[in-house]
């Protein structure tokens, strides 16, 4: 790599496989995904519904019920394999060292507890704070995430808040114990654009002030471009491309990423006269219940050949720091394997 990232390694996911046993066969929701996150880094995982991005996030925190789920591979957090950790150890990690923000702020807060109680719960559990200490810290957290009148809001219930405010409370809960890693699963998808802008701004500010690493899971390429440093593109349970955000948008190397970028209209298109047809990716995502012999994207790829249908392409460094799984992606600046 040309620019070495010297930040210490925080999370290493190695050949993660999360399969679900179903009535009509095994669903390979995540099938051999590897990536890493360094301290303080923001990594985005993008893909369409069913690509396995949320299951990947849930697997890291071991929130997948087993059975019917089955997680294999290794998830090393600060060198420790979470898949080998006991349930007790996992409880100490969840909400403390790794925390998560979910998509639906409406349903992920408990309606019968006050905002303060929900923020304080993690503090009392993980840091042994008293009720008073926890409330004081909860007020501090609400202030940090930009909720006006935190002293009043801390005693209110989630239904008294708007969607954007509830997502701020979710973020306050997630950050209360100063986690080293924050996993945000579609944190702004349920919000309006002006509120989304507020939350993205908040996440960027908090990243500098709190210093947690973030894994953001989204299908919105605009959000990726705004917050991420590095991007993993997933398709049908596999990682198909990984690159620094600028490289990915400038020179996408996998045909799926190229198709994805071509299929979103860009704001300002009417001014530049670029209002041509949108690029379509024909066809559908393949079923994950059958083993796919070759490349997972072969059924929809415009450049498909016999080789693609028969032999799965290996993830290969196509340019410095830029990995793609395609037999035909151009290679630049690195010695071809």
């Amino acid at each position, binding site marked *: 790599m040309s620019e070495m990232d010297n930040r210490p390694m925080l999370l290493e996911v190695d050949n993660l496989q999360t399969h679900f046993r179903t009535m009509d066969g095994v669903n390979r929701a995540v099938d051999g995904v590897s990536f890493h996150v360094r301290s303080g880094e923001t990594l985005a995982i993008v893909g*369409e*519904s069913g690509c396995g991005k949320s299951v990947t996030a849930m697997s890291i925190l071991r929130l997948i019920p087993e059975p019917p789920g089955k997680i294999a591979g290794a998830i090393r957090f600060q060198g420790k394999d979470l898949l080998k950790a006991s349930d007790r150890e996992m409880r100490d990690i969840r909400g403390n060292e790794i925390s998560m923000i979910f998509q639906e702020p409406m349903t992920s807060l408990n309606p019968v507890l006050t905002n303060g109680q929900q923020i304080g719960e993690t503090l009392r559990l993980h840091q042994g704070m008293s009720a008073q200490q926890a409330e004081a810290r909860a007020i501090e957290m609400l202030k940090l995430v930009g909720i006006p009148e935190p002293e009043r809001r801390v005693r209110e219930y989630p239904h008294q808040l*708007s969607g*954007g*405010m509830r997502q701020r409370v979710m973020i306050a809960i997630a950050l209360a114990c100063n986690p080293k890693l924050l996993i945000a699963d579609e944190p702004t998808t349920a919000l*309006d*654009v*002006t*509120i*989304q*802008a*507020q939350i*993205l*701004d908040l996440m960027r500010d908090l990243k500098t002030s709190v210093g947690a690493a973030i894994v953001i899971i989204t*299908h*919105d*390429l*605009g*959000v*990726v*471009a*705004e917050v*991420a440093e590095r991007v993993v593109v997933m398709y049908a349970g596999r990682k198909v491309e990984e690159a620094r*955000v*600028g490289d990915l*948008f400038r020179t996408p190397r996998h045909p799926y990423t190229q*198709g*994805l*970028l071509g*299929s*979103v*209209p*860009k*704001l*300002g*298109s*009417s*001014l530049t006269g670029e*209002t041509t*047809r*949108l*690029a*379509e*990716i*024909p066809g*559908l995502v393949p079923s994950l219940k059958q083993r796919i012999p070759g490349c997972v994207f072969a059924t929809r790829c415009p450049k498909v050949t016999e080789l693609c249908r028969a032999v799965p392409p290996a993830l290969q460094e196509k340019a410095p720091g830029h990995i793609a799984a395609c037999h035909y992606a151009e290679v630049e600046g690195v010695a071809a394997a």
Partner: protein
Amino acid sequence: MTKRVLEVSDLKKHFPIRGGLLGGTVGYVYAVDGVSFHIDQGETLSLVGESGCGKSTVGKSVLRLFPLTSGQVVLNGKRIDDMSTGTLRPLRRQIQVVFQDPFSSLNPRLRVREILAEPIRNFGLANSEAEIDEKVGQLMDKVRLPRDAVNRWPHEFSGGQRQRICIARALAAEPDIIVCDEAVSALDVSVKAQIVNLLQDLQAELGLAMLFISHDLAIVEHMTHRVAVMYLGQIVEVADRKQLFGAPRHPYTEALLSAVPVPMPGAARERIVLQGDVPSPIKPPPGCRFHTRCPYAFDRCRKEVPRLQDNGAGHQAACHLHDLPAEQNPLLNKAPPTAFRAA
């Protein structure tokens, strides 16, 4: 001369809030509060705005899915807002709808053939079963689904395919206008592009008018002719696509455009982050409804309601700033929020 398909004037829809001891009306949700617009043949008008702004209520009102509080809706020259449901029935053929969620808007107990044959039969558009079959086949071709799929059930299709069935069902009635209420919002990126392209092709082929209700501004800019921006039950700005996206004349539009994340990392542009949330439509603020969040609000905005004013080029906005001398107007003389340089 293009035909005017839909004309809406001063449309209001207030939903009563029941409460109190006797269950009387204790207030109203001012969901739509004085909205006017028109759509011509072959034209797409988009209604954009955030959740709760009343855009879907406008769509349902012009479809007459509920009675209106006041205002006029003229469909192909006929007033339909005060028509009895019986008289309206045959006219419903002219205006059809595609909803957001293709999973809940198809009857799971009907085969695709029956779903598409229903409007044809209902409006007497075919004389024999053979003719119905032929029409159903043509509809499948139009939305690019295989003809032999007509004997399958809705659950056998993916989200994008189901949305194609919903579009085919809307087309089955041979309408003049289609209301698309967030019709592509629930779809995945790559499927969304397929449906957007299909809608554009169908419009070109059939000369349909379209009322496209959406919160996705990039899609709206891509596929519409004119855009109306709604805030708290009112239209605050209407213009051609190029005018609106190139030089917005309302502070809300400006902020909305600047808030959309663009798929260009490091793109340099100025972002206006609005403070606070949308106020409740039960108690809309006095004066300009946007003044509580507007970065440029001054005294007059808190007292006086701004009217939609034309700038002389067909670009209408409801904002007091345009009564100020041009050099004092913060909306003018600056780069549009949609123009950015890639880093």
